[in-house]
């Protein structure tokens, strides 16, 4: 036990000092600043993403509406055109056939 006590007593007399205390202190403060800035950046990033997502979803819904309207309009237009073209083509062919018959009649 005396040996133990002697070692402990000797150890109490030893003093340890942190090398370059000024640099060490500044280093700790820099790390703290970095951590704070990183936290702020993360918060800003999250807010930015959240707002971005909101704006994107709003824009997409608006674009989607426009596209839908356009598609419906286009299909209406296409459907209308198709009928007209069909009527016109059938009409034209009928007139041509009639004319052909008429030419036979005329030439005969």
């Amino acid at each position, binding site marked *: 036990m005396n040996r*133990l006590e002697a070692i402990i007593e*000797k150890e109490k007399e*030893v003093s340890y000092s942190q090398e370059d205390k000024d640099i060490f202190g500044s280093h*700790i403060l820099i790390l*703290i600043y970095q951590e704070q800035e990183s936290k702020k950046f993360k918060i800003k990033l999250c807010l930015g993403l959240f707002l971005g997502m909101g704006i994107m979803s709003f824009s997409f819904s608006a674009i989607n509406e426009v596209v839908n309207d356009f598609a419906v309009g286009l299909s209406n237009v296409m459907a209308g055109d198709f009928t007209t073209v069909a009527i016109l083509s059938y009409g034209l062919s009928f007139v041509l056939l009639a004319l052909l018959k008429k030419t036979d009649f005329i030439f005969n």
Partner: protein
Amino acid sequence: METDEVLVDRTLSGEIDCYGVLVQRHADYLFGLGMRFTAGNREFAEDISQQSFLRAYKYLKSFNPKKKFKQWLTGIAVNCYKDLSRKESQYLSLEVIDEPSYTPDLGGNTGFFELIKPLAEDERAIFTLRYVYEYRIDEIAETVGLKSGTVKSKISRALEKLR
């Protein structure tokens, strides 16, 4: 000279430079603790000191001004020492190497460092706080978050190992 508690208060109110004063004031103490816990491993001791100051800043709001800042910091240093030791052992178990990554740098009383080597992490910390820093049993219990009985049994176990 402003007390630690005043500096903590000023730090919490946004004057971060006041924390720099606290770091300068307790840097030697924490480094010494680290050196003794790690049996003279300078690199490891510096890591403990740095991590302790960073963690202390993170949890500064939870500091009770009725208690001593130094004692609160000591508790954080003990926890940092345990956490870093655990990480280090995990690292060693992953990579089979002959030498530890933290190489001992015996820059103090090598007799003491040799003495505490057979002790487990928490035994080293408690033994050092009790016999080198002369903390009372109840103070150690409060610092490391254990019951006084547990601290006593750990000290007697440590003494048995050292005899």
